[in-house]
């Protein structure tokens, strides 16, 4: 099978040129790595980010902003802990608002990583190798941000450990029948497995960084975490078994985490929350927002660190297609909810949905619909899917829309419940806003540190998608390197992940 070479396409600005490898020719598969025909070039391209003396100016600028927001987060959280949850804008019917909205938002963002590493792995989507490493990193940081919110929302933070079923002298146990407790298990399992998956994938690349490191600190740090990896045949064999098993473990987790989050709402009897489509609807929404965040981060990162030959236009095009598909699924869920609310004939169901669209939170609802269902339809056009500025803008729009989706679900259903005399309106305070922005700062800080010090792209896995990794590649004859096996026996042997 011959690969389609990328067509050169000059950008309007110097430094912003793109190579178009998105053309599909049935019967051929496009190159996923551009302008490189030696494995060593991939290694160099990825490692130079961590090895350079200082990162680009844009990195410093972003880091300063993110770190300042972390400071704001610290202020807000401390103020909350020392004063009490009254500093938030919560009121009697609206007892969940920004806290849980942010929690669900961040858990959702954390979905793309596992989807890419586990489900796209099962579907043999080779393009996932260009983006899986930093999508997984994003997953871990997003789950950290998510975990923050239920922790501080309990009010008396020093008792947050009561969430866990720890034996104690008072015989006090959490309510095992509550989905809030299932959430504790679902999210912590997800975090643990994602972290393990990410770390196992990192080991060969950490060893590469260790071998290339010049400074003692780098040698020690990368050496410590690469666990004595030497790239021997046996190492690769065990590594691939571990990778396969972790992929198998992660696959159900992609569905389970957000399903359990949706149970927090759907097991109740509150109109707008109690609806059976919630689990798959939340999962689709999570993948939708997760991919949007990957695009939001990938676009500047590949530009800043010169990774355009590995995170190519085709990778971005594919991600935009997934955004389109999941956006349509989310649209399907919105319409089913609305239709069934009418079809049920139940007064309260009907009210809950009309109230969402035309009640006091109508603006939030229409922001949600336009950002999540209407604008993503632009991705039907290839010209838009492959335009860097437009996809960046649309990915931001999706992020905004998905934040509002959780806000609409949580707040609009609570604010106007069964008893009209208790209705109220939620207005966020500066602490609400500060905590929300601070979480973005925390996420940004962790992500920027990751970009600076760890290999952003799975070096070994990307090499395996290059045509040169195939021992039967026709090019080997021309290279005169025997049958190619000699070249492959080098320390930079690409590994070919098992498809289960």
């Amino acid at each position, binding site marked *: *099978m011959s690969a389609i070479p990328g067509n050169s396409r000059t950008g309007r600005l110097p430094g912003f040129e793109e190579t178009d490898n998105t053309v599909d020719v049935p*019967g051929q598969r496009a190159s996923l790595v551009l302008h490189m025909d030696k494995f060593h070039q991939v290694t160099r391209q990825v490692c130079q980010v961590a090895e350079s003396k200082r990162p680009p100016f844009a990195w410093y600028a972003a880091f300063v902003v993110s770190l300042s927001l972390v400071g704001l987060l610290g202020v807000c959280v401390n103020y909350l802990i020392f004063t009490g949850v009254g500093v938030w804008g919560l009121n009697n019917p609206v007892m969940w608002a920004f806290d849980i909205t942010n929690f669900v938002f961040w858990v959702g963002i954390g979905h793309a990583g596992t989807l890419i590493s586990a489900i796209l792995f099962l579907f043999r989507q080779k393009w996932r190798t260009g983006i899986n490493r930093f999508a997984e990193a994003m997953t871990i940081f997003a789950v950290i941000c998510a975990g923050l919110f239920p922790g501080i929302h309990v009010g008396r933070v020093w008792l947050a450990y009561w969430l866990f079923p720890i034996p104690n002298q008072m015989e006090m146990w959490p309510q095992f029948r509550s989905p809030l407790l299932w959430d504790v298990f679902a999210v912590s399992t997800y975090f643990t497995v994602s972290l393990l998956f990410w770390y196992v994938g990192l080991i060969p690349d950490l060893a590469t960084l260790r071998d290339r490191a010049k400074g003692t600190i780098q040698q020690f740090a990368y050496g410590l975490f690469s666990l004595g990896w030497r790239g021997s045949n046996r190492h690769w064999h065990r590594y691939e078994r571990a990778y396969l098993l972790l992929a198998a473990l992660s696959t159900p987790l992609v569905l389970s985490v957000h399903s359990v989050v949706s*149970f927090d709402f759907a*097991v109740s009897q509150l109109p707008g929350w109690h609806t059976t*489509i919630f689990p*798959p609807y939340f999962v689709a929404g999570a993948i939708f927002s997760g991919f949007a965040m990957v695009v939001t981060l990938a676009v500047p990162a590949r530009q800043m660190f010169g990774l355009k030959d590995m995170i190519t236009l085709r990778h971005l095009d594919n991600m935009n297609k997934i955004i389109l598909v999941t956006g349509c699924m989310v649209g399907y869920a919105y319409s089913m909810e609305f239709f069934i609310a009418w079809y049920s*004939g139940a007064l309260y169901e009907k009210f809950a949905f009309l109230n969402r669209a035309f009640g006091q939170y109508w603006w939030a609802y229409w922001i949600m619909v336009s950002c999540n269902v209407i604008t993503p339809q632009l991705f039907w056009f290839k010209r838009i899917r492959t335009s860097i500025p437009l996809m960046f803008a649309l990915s931001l729009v999706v992020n905004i829309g998905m934040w509002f989706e959780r806000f609409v679900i949580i707040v609009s259903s609570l604010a106007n419940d069964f008893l009209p005399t208790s209705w109220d309106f939620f207005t966020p305070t500066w602490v609400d806003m500060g905590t929300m922005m601070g979480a973005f700062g925390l996420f940004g800080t962790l992500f920027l540190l990751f970009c600076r010090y760890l290999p952003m792209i799975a070096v070994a896995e990307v090499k395996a998608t290059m045509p040169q990794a195939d021992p039967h590649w026709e090019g080997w004859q021309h290279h005169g390197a025997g049958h190619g096996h000699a070249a492959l026996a080098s320390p930079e042997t690409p590994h070919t992940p098992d498809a*289960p």
Partner: protein
Amino acid sequence: MAHALSANAIPAAAISGERLAPRSRVLTIAGIVLLVAGFAMVRTDPGFAAKAWLQAWLFAVSLSLGALFFVIIQHLTRAGWSVVVRRVAECIAANLLWLWLGFLPIAWLWFDGRLDTLFPWANLDHLREVAPEEAALVGKKVAFLNPGFFMIRAASYLLVWALLARFFLSNSVAQDSDRSVARSEKMGKWAGPAAILFGLTTTFASFDWIMSLNPAWFSTMFGVYFFAACCAGGFSAIALMSLRAQSRGLLKDVVTPEHYQDLGKMLFGFGIVFWAYIAFSQYMLIWYGNVPEETTWFMARQIGQWRIVSAALLFGHFVIPFLFLISRWTKRWRGTLTFGVAWMLVFHWVDLAYLIQPVIPHDIGKYDTYDALLAAYANEAAPVLNPGLIALSAGMLFLLVGRTLARLVRTGLLCKGDPRLAESLRFENF
């Protein structure tokens, strides 16, 4: 599979359907005979006859819909591995070109003013007499649940499915001779809109033909459940027909254990695990919320013999096939895969019985406790093993297979002009 067959070296006899013609005729005739016998057996009870027919017909429809989804998704994802099994899927899906005939008995009920034999909402006055509370709820949805609109919708679903099946089959067959790459591009381009049309029509068809059998009951998940059920049936049918064709000496070295493993994975992922996920979520949320309007549907499936059917579905549609098909070798070895997919077809049929046959007792609200309800309906029969129902379903299945074979005789068994054929022949799971 170091020595994959090259696309030019496939013997014509291996992909010609000629050999299937006699079997196709036998199955078609057997199907018609069984249908006639089945009707004769159920005719004394018009209510049950209508439901039995609905189940038998939807059994065939759901298998074709599953196959149609398979075809659409292969084009949508530009899949290479599946080319060698796609013609079988296209021909199963193409049954949607004649399956609309199966709706005619229901259309006749409508024409005769007896649509309420099947759908209680069609006769609101009667419903008001027997179940006034339910009728009050159903009365609010007459804008949707009324015979005229119901018929228009049914016609539109059947038309959309026939057009989609025809589009993908005719382009694929034309490609056999003209080998045009543009056809692959065209089918890939239209697969997106086709998926959306498929999703919407399948959802609303399941609302109309299954959910509205209990018109007061509702679940936003129901369309997704039916979609997962279609995958269970359709993917099993594709695998089973490929396996049977191969044991008759066709598709030799064309369809390999690699392709069977992938078909098995698709069935495992969509038809078994995703189905169970959806079924569990729907059940758990309704059970936990415990809202009477919603729980009645499940209660009707937990009284008398339906209790056994529900448990059988849990084990037969999920636990047992999950454990059986999780291994690599059971999906690759023809004997075990044949057993697995045949099993899934049976339980897909049981699933349809579970969805269609139970009747929610009108007096369900008068029992104070769950135990009292169970005691009162301890003898409720589940007509799953009714010979008339089985004859009708088997008749539809035979007819479906017979007509699929007849089409394969005309079109050949392989998309031999597909530009991704070489990739598919060479495909292996690492």
